[in-house]
């Protein structure tokens, strides 16, 4: 039996971005169709926003994720950091995922 493993691809996950605690941090909020809201604190290098959020504000953004597996309608991804109440691994709808063309 041959087995191949491939390194996971990176992609961008749509989210809301707010300030974190430390200046290098950002808060990300991922809202899933089942009503769950996943909050995580990540390094600012892991998020893409058109402008930095102000104190108390959320802006639309993208967080860089690793894609482990894709199915017809969903993808299993790793956030750069665990969520506050869950681990980093999430199954998300495919419509929340974009290709990451920005990293080398």
């Amino acid at each position, binding site marked *: 039996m041959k087995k191949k*493993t*491939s390194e996971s691809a990176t992609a961008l996950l749509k989210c809301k971005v707010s300030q974190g605690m430390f200046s290098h941090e950002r808060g990300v909020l991922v809202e899933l169709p089942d009503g769950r809201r996943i*909050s995580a604190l990540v390094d600012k290098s892991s998020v893409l926003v058109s402008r930095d959020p102000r104190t108390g504000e959320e802006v639309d953004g993208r967080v860089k994720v690793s894609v482990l597996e894709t199915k017809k309608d969903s993808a299993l991804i790793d956030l750069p950091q665990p969520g506050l109440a869950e681990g980093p691994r999430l199954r998300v709808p495919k419509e929340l995922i974009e290709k990451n063309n920005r990293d080398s």
Partner: protein
Amino acid sequence: MILSDREIRETLRQKKILIDPLPTEEQYTTSALDLILGDEIFELKTPEELAREEPRGVERPIVVDPLHIDLKDFLRRYAKPLPQEPDGSFILQPGKFVLGITREYLELPRRSKIAARVEGRSTLARLGLVVHLTAPTIHAGFPGRIVLEMYNFGNYPLRLTPGKLAICQLIFERLGRIPGGPVRTTHAGQRSVR
């Protein structure tokens, strides 16, 4: 397998991992790397402090629910910077819990097959300082500065000087395989030998 100082240096030289700023030679021990305290420390407001900020006549118990927390509002209202001394240092009082960061920014790409563990330093531990409460693992794929959960179990206030104090050590470990990613087999779905 734990990486030795020479292996850590080699891994950096080959750009398999990234540490910025690059460690000085004094930061290395035989099988670990000391990291330096960063310039931000935060504390969470006490219930008494919060109660003082409430209008008269308002009383509430505070329960934090990690499942439903609004991060941006929570951090804005309940976290505050620890005051800095004129020389830029911080004073950590006995019995106080704060959140700090390392000066160093770290990247452990998955393809490097390297993870790490944050540990305290025994010399600081003797003074009562712990720098992580749980979750010492820096997983493969991590990018960022390391946040430290610091508590002073000792009897005396401790002066913590950013940019100078070696606050923790990082132990690097090699993974057996690159993590994540689908497993493909030529016999997927097979129900019999043929």
